[in-house]
């Protein structure tokens, strides 16, 4: 009843091409962002920030990056963890080796290094496709793991291979309390989500989607596969690299290569698949599903005061989580984002469906 677009006339192409053409959507998103910036910092407890909101924001940023590559350009990648690691370690090196390096600059430079590595490992995508490409990007994962474990220079000669950062600040403002960290990550996520959304609906995004849908046909109509595929790799690994740097700097504070191992790559790929391939919104849904749900499941017995063995609780979490993944993929193979848009379609007609 409330959610309908009657009376919202579009009189210009601009209005027709808006990110959220429906006024209610626009308002809802603005309200959510405003609430995230203004209300959440005052009401949420510290645990919520540190254990849920910050990891959720950073991993949704990474999922967003991966979604550009897998969802929009159709290039399956299992090297996400590697690109995150490159971002984190590169940013660390900029921060440690260059005196007075601003934090944001080192994070972005981390992303730039990740872009270079991403493009390098994206080159095989010009010749190999589908699952074979997944295997090729797996090489990136193993190579990067190896490099950060073995090459001492990358870890500033730390004896154990574990590196850490402290005293983060932006323009004199410290990034120390959970609220500051949260707002810092939120700013990154909003900016990158906006950039990503505009990229995918611009000409470059259309090229990616054309390559995804059928690369031969795309080449025939004049899209250069080299350019389209490598830009997708570049943009994707840039965002993923920045997310990796945030994960290390802001969330963990101290990390070793194991923080970005193959499990992380799979986790992100699942986020994208469950959340919805080729959807910016889906990246957030997927991240929420994979980050928040296990923690909630883990906590349920304590909240209800059920005395339960720790091991049993952990196993139950795995089982319920796995069952839910299967359930959602059966109900809607196109991911939570599709479920969301179906819901919206239905809502438009409610309460009088034809």
């Amino acid at each position, binding site marked *: 009843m409330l959610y309908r677009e009657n009376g919202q006339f579009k009189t210009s192409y601009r209005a027709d091409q808006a990110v959220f053409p429906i006024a209610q959507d626009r308002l809802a998103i603005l309200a959510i962002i405003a609430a995230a910036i203004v209300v959440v910092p005052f009401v949420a407890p510290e645990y919520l920030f540190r254990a849920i909101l910050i990891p959720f924001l950073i991993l949704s940023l990474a999922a967003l990056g991966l979604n550009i590559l897998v969802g929009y350009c159709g290039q399956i990648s299992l090297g996400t963890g590697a690109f995150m690691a490159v971002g984190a370690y590169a940013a660390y090196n900029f921060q440690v080796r260059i005196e007075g390096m601003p934090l944001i600059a080192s994070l972005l430079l981390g992303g730039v290094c990740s872009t270079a590595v991403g493009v390098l490992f994206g080159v095989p995508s010009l010749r190999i496709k589908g699952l074979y490409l997944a295997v090729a990007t797996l090489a990136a994962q193993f190579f990067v793991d190896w490099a950060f474990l073995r090459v001492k220079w990358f870890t500033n000669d730390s004896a*154990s291979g574990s590196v850490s950062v402290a005293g983060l600040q932006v323009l004199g403002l410290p990034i120390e309390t959970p609220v500051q960290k949260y707002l810092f990550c939120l700013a990154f996520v909003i900016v990158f989500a906006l950039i990503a959304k505009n990229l995918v609906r611009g000409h470059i995004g259309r090229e990616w989607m054309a390559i995804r849908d059928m690369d031969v046909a795309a080449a025939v109509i004049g899209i250069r596969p080299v350019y389209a595929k490598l830009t997708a790799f570049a943009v994707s690994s840039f965002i993923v690299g920045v997310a990796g740097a945030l994960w290390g700097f802001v969330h963990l504070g101290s990390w070793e290569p194991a923080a970005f191992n193959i499990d992380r790559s799979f986790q992100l790929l699942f986020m994208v698949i469950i959340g919805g391939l080729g959807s910016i919104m889906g990246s957030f849904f997927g991240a929420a599903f994979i980050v928040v749900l296990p923690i909630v499941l883990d906590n349920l017995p304590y909240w209800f005061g059920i005395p339960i063995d720790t091991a049993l609780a952990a196993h139950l979490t795995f089982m319920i989580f796995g069952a839910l993944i299967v359930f959602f993929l059966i109900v809607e193979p196109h991911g939570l984002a599709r479920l969301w848009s179906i819901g919206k379609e239905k809502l438009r007609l409610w309460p009088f469906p034809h």
Partner: protein
Amino acid sequence: MKLKSISTAIVIAAAAAAGLATSTAFAQAKEQFFPVLVYRTGAYAPNGVPWANGYVDYLKYTNAKGGMNGVKITYEECETGYATDKGVECYERLKGKGATVFQPLSTGITFALTEKAPGDKIPLITAGYGRSESQDGNVFKWNFPIAGTYWVAADALVQHVAKKEGGLDKLKGKKIALVYHDSPYGKEPIPLMQERSKLHGFDLQLLPVTAPGVEQKATWLQIRQSRPDYVFLWGWGVMNSTAIKEAVATGYPREKMYGVWWAGAEPDVKDVGDSAKGYNAVTMQHGTETGSKIVQEILKEVHGKGQGTGPKEEVGQVLYMRGVMSAMFAVEGVKRAQERYGKGKVMSGEQTRWGLENLALDQKKLDALGFAGVMRPVSTSCADHMGANWARVHTWDGSKWQFSSDWLQADESILKPMVKAAADKYAAEKKLTRRTPEDCQS
């Protein structure tokens, strides 16, 4: 659908609020909360479970004995699965409940929490593991690697094999291979081994094994080719039994193999059984202590009353004892703090930190606690957060672990400069200054 999910959310929120209310009610009743980070699942569970059982059993035992000067212990376990991010989540979850002291039980989690603990004013105990340079309490104010680090373990091992060879000078030209778990944990002993190898002129061969360590064929092929005089095994979980099996397959004598204490417990050799006979491991003071008084007490007071956490047969085994000892340090730290800040009171993290820093467990106290013969006295100070640097070597005889060496003491003349240099490097990176003598008094 939507309404339903909203109503569930409300139910969950209400339950959470109820949980919060009860926990504050608990705090008023003179109860000290101990968070317990464990891994009872995953690849390392075989080693994590006995530790957790020992830890929790000791807490229960303390309560059965009337608590800490009347203050009862409450605790909550949190499963980390040995993952650093999961460990951080556990830390955040439990610290809000008034955590006294954290024991991360993972080198990776220790590194992450080292950054967070000072801000939250919660001490970390890493008994026998963690970062070796954190012995330097002047830089690492909140870290307590009580009674040993991996550097102590490695140093004791080098001394032990030197003794076998007939003196440290006899090590010249010998070859020692370090087979290690490729993680911060496995890499910890490397600086010390390198230092020792420079000093005595033995060859150090570094052989990393990718976690979790089920694939070691290539590593042992290298060992077969280079035939090192000794193999030090910095392995863990499934990696240990795999390494011993590979040693059998390549014909490397088990008598020449020395594990760290994580590679020297029952789960590591049980599956291999007889072929592991002769395999040695360094212990950070204690070994299997089924005969000790504390074990008998726990069996009587906890298991005897049907309160035991794990199987009865495992009580007193190596890793179980490690859990017991770690819990004892935490409890004694709180008790020591009570001596200064008021007996029978609930201690804050800061007060507990003082207690841990001024821990004085002399022989008399250890005897009273039932730890006679299990360990040697520990006494910490502002500069030294480790408090004891003794170790022993024990050997698997096919069915049980038996001590095969006398007490070994790590060489402070080697350790001290290394600890100081590493701590200084950390302080410089973090722009920290060393603590002043006045700060030590607080």
